[in-house]
């Protein structure tokens, strides 16, 4: 859902696994819903890692570890690979995450997070490793993400990194606007493009 993202300051949930695919974030059997009920998807976030086959929580999974919580997910490199299902981003939002910090995101999922108002923050491998270490050593570690300044700061160590975000998308996040708001205002340009095309297929 559209929401304003400017400052996110929170503790973090560490998931130090690489290549987490969207089938793990939200398994296909939960994609049958025809509504965008983010709470439903959030309840099933990481379903098969989070719960055992009998439905009881898997205590070794980080979402069931009472020491960790917060609005920021720390994830290993190549987060969100595989399926294009935006339900994965909705599940992250529905669970309560506002940002995911990783060193590398899969393309489609990264767009889906942005379009679902969950901020994908790319940091260096080195900073990510430091964040995992500090959060695991002290789950009370807080991290501050400043969208306007495009910075992410560990409030424990003071280390700060700049992250990429194009000016257009930043404006959207700061003002709770989405791409459809923008595109429907471009109809004149779309029609003139259609008229001027050399090879319309």
């Amino acid at each position, binding site marked *: 859902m559209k929401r304003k993202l400017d400052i996110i300051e929170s503790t973090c949930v560490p998931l130090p*696994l690489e*290549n987490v*695919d969207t*089938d*793990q974030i939200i*398994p*296909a*059997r939960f*994609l*049958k819903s*025809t*509504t*965008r009920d983010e709470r439903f998807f959030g309840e099933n976030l990481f379903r*098969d890692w989070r719960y055992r*086959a009998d439905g009881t929580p898997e205590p070794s999974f980080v979402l069931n570890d009472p020491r960790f919580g917060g609005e920021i997910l720390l994830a290993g*490199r*190549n987060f969100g*690979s*595989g*399926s*294009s*299902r*935006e*339900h994965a*981003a909705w599940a992250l939002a529905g669970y309560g995450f506002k940002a995911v910090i990783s060193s*590398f995101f*899969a*393309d*489609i999922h990264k*767009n*889906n997070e942005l*379009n*679902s108002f969950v901020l994908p923050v790319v940091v260096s491998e080195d900073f990510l490793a430091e964040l995992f270490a500090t959060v695991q050593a002290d789950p009370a570690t807080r991290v501050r993400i400043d969208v306007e300044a495009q910075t992410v700061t560990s409030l424990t160590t003071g280390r700060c990194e700049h992250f990429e975000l*194009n*000016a*257009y*998308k930043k404006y959207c996040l700061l003002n709770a606007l*989405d*791409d*459809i708001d*923008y*595109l*429907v205002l*471009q*109809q004149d*340009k*779309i029609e003139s*493009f*259609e008229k001027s*095309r*050399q*090879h319309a*297929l």
Partner: protein
Amino acid sequence: MNTLFDKIWDAHVVQHVDGGPDQLYVDRLYCHEVTSPQAFDGLRARSLRPLRPERIFCMPDHNTPTHDQDKPIADSVSKAQVDALSRNAAEFGLTHFGMMDPRNGIIHVVGPERGLSLPGMTIVCGDSHTSTHGAMGAVAFGIGTSEVEMVLASQCILQPKPRTMRIRIEGTPGPCVTAKDLALYLMQQLTTSGATGYFVEYAGSAVRGLSMEGRLTLCNLSIEMGARGGMVAPDEVTFAYLKDKEYAPKGADWDRALAFWRTLHSGDDAVFDKEYCFDAADIAPMITYGTNPGMGMPVDGAIPPEASPKALQYMDFQPGERLLGKPVDYVFLGACTNGRIEDFRGFAALVKGRRKAAGVTAWLVPGSWEVYRQIVAEGIDQILAGAGFELRQPGCSACLAMNDDKIPSGKYCVSTSNRNFEGRQGPGARTLLASPLVAAAAAVTGVITDPRTL
């Protein structure tokens, strides 16, 4: 610069958004039942209608059962999703190939075979395997549901332009080495993130030598290397495939289109951001041992000692272990990866005169009704029946198990689909990705077998 990808992308840029992505015009949007309902809801919430309904084609494929499609879907939740697509298409005036429509099937099989996916087009769908359509010489990529809504509303999408990569495969592949093996080899070489941020053009004599079906398989798996899409420059193989297809241009329009399509290739001076070259002779029939498609090896190889312990624990394999001779519980032939006529021809040629192994459950699922009809017309169904195999009705089926075709927990399935992620074919299911030939060899022997030895 001056790549095939640049030519097509640049010709579709409506404008460069200030400080942001490109606004790209979309020639074709495909909608299936899983990733579209929330996009249609979004349109209604904003009181919008599709801007160019004639460019949009809808069909259910993920939830469809592979038997008794003439009866209502038993699973009420699946039925609700399939019905929602039908209602949305009717409400918004979109073409809909519903269940039992002779044109229905998996979107990525139907689009090319109906002539809806054409060279030079931009094509999107809320499905990562939209990369398949790049085989026609198009820029085709998977998108999320918000992006589906964007295209419905404006026939455009906002996208940062990806970088370009060319992968050449030169030489002649050895016996039993198919397009699927080329792709599994590339994923093993490049890993599942090796092409992230890139759009791939496949080239080289081994790619040129592929049939249209083979090219579709190769491009289908581009996303499994992380690429936004993959494409093959259109040539006589493409044009012969498209001629007289239902939605392909006809008469003078065909001649005009053909003249344009012949210009669609990378220039001799084209510069790619990244280039790879592989020798087809180095590629063997492949199989995966792990839980992402990059965890592959030659079918007669051994699991690398450094393989991910988490993946091997899930698969119950050991580092260094060989898979030849391992018992197989299920075989799945189908999916947008390998559900085309050539895949069934290959599978049938190998099982002809043999019998399905007693312990194996085999699901043979054509990618579309068109493929189904071809199978029957060529007598392949008789060969399969003679070997103890039954043909099912078309759909995505066990590739992602959204219908009843689920692999039970702990069971091994040699699958011609595209993903071996944990739980992909059902909770606890263990997937070994392979070509139709490796799948056929497992189906008749009951164990993982090198098809070259049969």
